[in-house]
C-alpha cells in the first residue's frame, strides 16, 4: 500500500508545484514534497539520507526560497506560452530517465548489485575489526572509501567558496545592483507593497508581544537542536548519522537563530569571518588527519597507526574526520543562508 501511496503523492506534489499560480503555495508544496521524500527514504531504510532530506530539502531550501520570494513578486504573472524546443528536451530527458528506471532492481530484491558484489562480504566482515565501526555505512564512508569522502567534503567546501565569490562580490559592486538594493530598502519601508497589512489599532500591544513567543521558544530549542546535531555526528559510529547529517543540523540551528533574532544578532554569534574560516578548516582537519597518519608511518588516511591499538586508532581517526566534515557542512549551510540574505542587510 505505502509502496504505491507515497510515490503517487510525490508525483501529485510535483505536478502541483508547477500548476499553482501563487509562488508561496508552490514553495510550501515543495516543502511537503521533501518531507514525503524523507518518509520514503526512511521506509527504504536510508535513515541517513532521510535526516539530510528533512533538514535540507524541507528546512534550508524552503527558507532560501522564501528569502528570495521576499524580493520578487508573490504571484507568477508570466505569460503562459509553450516553448517547443524546451518541451522536446524535457520530454526526451524524462523518457531517458524512465528508460533508466527499467534497469533498477525491484523493491526488496535480494539479488541487487550491492548484495552480490565481491567487496560486500569484505566490508561486512572487516568493518568492526579494522575500522572499529559497528555501523558499516560509516566504516565504508570514512575508512574503506576515505578518499571519496575527503573529496566530497572538498566539493561541498568548494561550493561554499563559489557562493561567496559569486554573491559577495556582486553585493559589493556598485552600479547594477544598487538600484535593486534601493528597491529592496524602499519595499521594506512600505510593508503594504508585499501584501502585509500593518496593524494600526494596537501598536504598543503588538510591539510588546511581537516576538516574545518565538524568541522564547527559539532560545529554548536551539541548545537541543545543537546537542542533537553533535549527537548525530558522534553517533555515526553506531547508528545512522555522521558528519554530513550532523553538520546540516548544526547549520540549521544558526539559520533558525538568524531568522528569529535577525541577521545582525546572528552575525554577533557567528560572524561572517568565523564562518568563512570554518568552511576551510573542516577540510583542513580531514586532510590533516591523513597527513598525521603519514607522520606515524602509515598511508594517507590510514587511521590505524594513530594509536598503539589500531582498532581504537581507527575509531579516533574516524571521529576526527566526522567532526571535520560536520564543521565544513555546517559552515557551508550557514554560508548559503548568509550570502542570500546579505543584500537585505546594509553593508
Amino acid at each position, binding site marked *: 500500500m505505502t509502496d504505491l501511496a507515497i510515490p503517487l503523492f510525490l508525483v501529485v506534489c510535483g505536478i502541483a508545484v508547477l500548476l499553482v499560480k501563487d509562488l508561496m503555495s508552490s514553495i510550501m508544496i515543495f516543502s511537503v514534497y521533501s518531507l514525503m521524500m524523507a518518509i520514503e527514504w526512511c521506509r527504504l531504510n536510508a535513515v541517513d539520507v532521510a535526516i539530510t532530506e528533512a533538514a535540507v530539502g524541507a528546512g534550508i531550501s524552503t527558507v532560501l526560497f522564501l528569502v528570495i520570494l521576499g524580493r520578487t*513578486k*508573490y*504571484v507568477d504573472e508570466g505569460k503562459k506560452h509553450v516553448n517547443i524546443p524546451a518541451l522536446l528536451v524535457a520530454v526526451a530527458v524524462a523518457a531517458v530517465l524512465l528508460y533508466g528506471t527499467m534497469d533498477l532492481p525491484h523493491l526488496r530484491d535480494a539479488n541487487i548489485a550491492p548484495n552480490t558484489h565481491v567487496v560486500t562480504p569484505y566490508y561486512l566482515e572487516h568493518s568492526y575489526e579494522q575500522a572499529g565501526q559497528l555501523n558499516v555505512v560509516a566504516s565504508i564512508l570514512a575508512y574503506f572509501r576515505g578518499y571519496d569522502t575527503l573529496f566530497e567534503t572538498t566539493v561541498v567546501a568548494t561550493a561554499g567558496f563559489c557562493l561567496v565569490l559569486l554573491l559577495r562580490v556582486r553585493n559589493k559592486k556598485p552600479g547594477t545592483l544598487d538600484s535593486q538594493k534601493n528597491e529592496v530598502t524602499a519595499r521594506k519601508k512600505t510593508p*503594504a*507593497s*508585499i*501584501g*502585509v*497589512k500593518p*496593524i494600526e489599532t494596537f501598536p504598543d500591544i503588538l510591539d510588546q508581544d511581537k516576538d516574545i*513567543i*518565538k524568541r522564547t*521558544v527559539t532560545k*529554548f*530549542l536551539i541548545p*537541543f537542536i545543537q546537542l542533537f546535531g553533535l549527537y548525530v555526528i558522534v553517533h555515526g559510529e553506531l547508528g545512522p548519522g555522521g558528519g554530513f547529517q550532523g553538520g546540516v543540523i548544526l547549520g540549521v540551528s544558526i539559520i533558525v537563530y538568524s531568522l528569529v533574532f535577525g541577521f545582525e544578532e546572528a552575525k554577533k554569534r557567528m560572524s561572517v569571518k568565523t564562518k568563512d574560516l570554518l568552511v576551510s578548516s573542516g577540510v583542513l582537519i580531514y586532510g590533516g588527519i591523513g597527513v598525521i597518519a603519514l607522520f606515524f608511518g602509515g598511508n594517507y588516511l590510514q587511521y590505524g597507526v594513530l594509536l598503539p591499538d589500531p582498532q581504537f586508532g581507527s575509531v579516533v581517526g574516524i571521529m576526527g574526520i566526522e567532526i571535520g566534515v560536520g564543521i565544513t557542512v555546517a559552515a557551508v549551510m550557514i554560508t548559503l543562508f548568509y550570502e542570500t540574505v546579505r543584500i537585505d542587510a546594509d553593508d
Partner: protein
Amino acid sequence: MDIRVILTALFLAIGCFLFLVASIGVIRFPDFFTRMHAAGKADSLGQACIIIGLMIYSGFTQVSLKLLLIMITVFIINTTATHYLAKAAYLKGVKPWVKGSKYGETNPFAVPSAANVVAKKAKAKR
C-alpha cells in the same frame, strides 16, 4: 490481557479519535482561524496521546525516553507554529468567519493581494 496493552490501546484510540476529529474540523470549519483551531488539537493533544500510548507499550526503556523527548519537542514546536500561522493570517488580513454568515459565503482564502491593498489605500486617500 496485559494491562499495559489495554492502556496502550486506550491512549492510541484517544489519539486517533482526536486526529479524526481534527481532520473533520479542518474540512468542515468555515474559515482559516477555526480550521487552525481544529488542527491545533491534533498537533498537541493527539500526538501526545499517541506517543504516551507508545511509551507505555515500550515500557521503562531508552526508547520511551526518546519518545518522551519527541513528544515534548513536537508539543512545543507545533503549538508555536499554529500560533504563528494564525498570527500571520491575522496580520495579512484574512477575514474571520462571523456568526450568521452562511457556510461558504465568505471566501476563506480571500487574502488581499499586494495590488488590492495598494488600490484600497489609494481609494482611502481620495
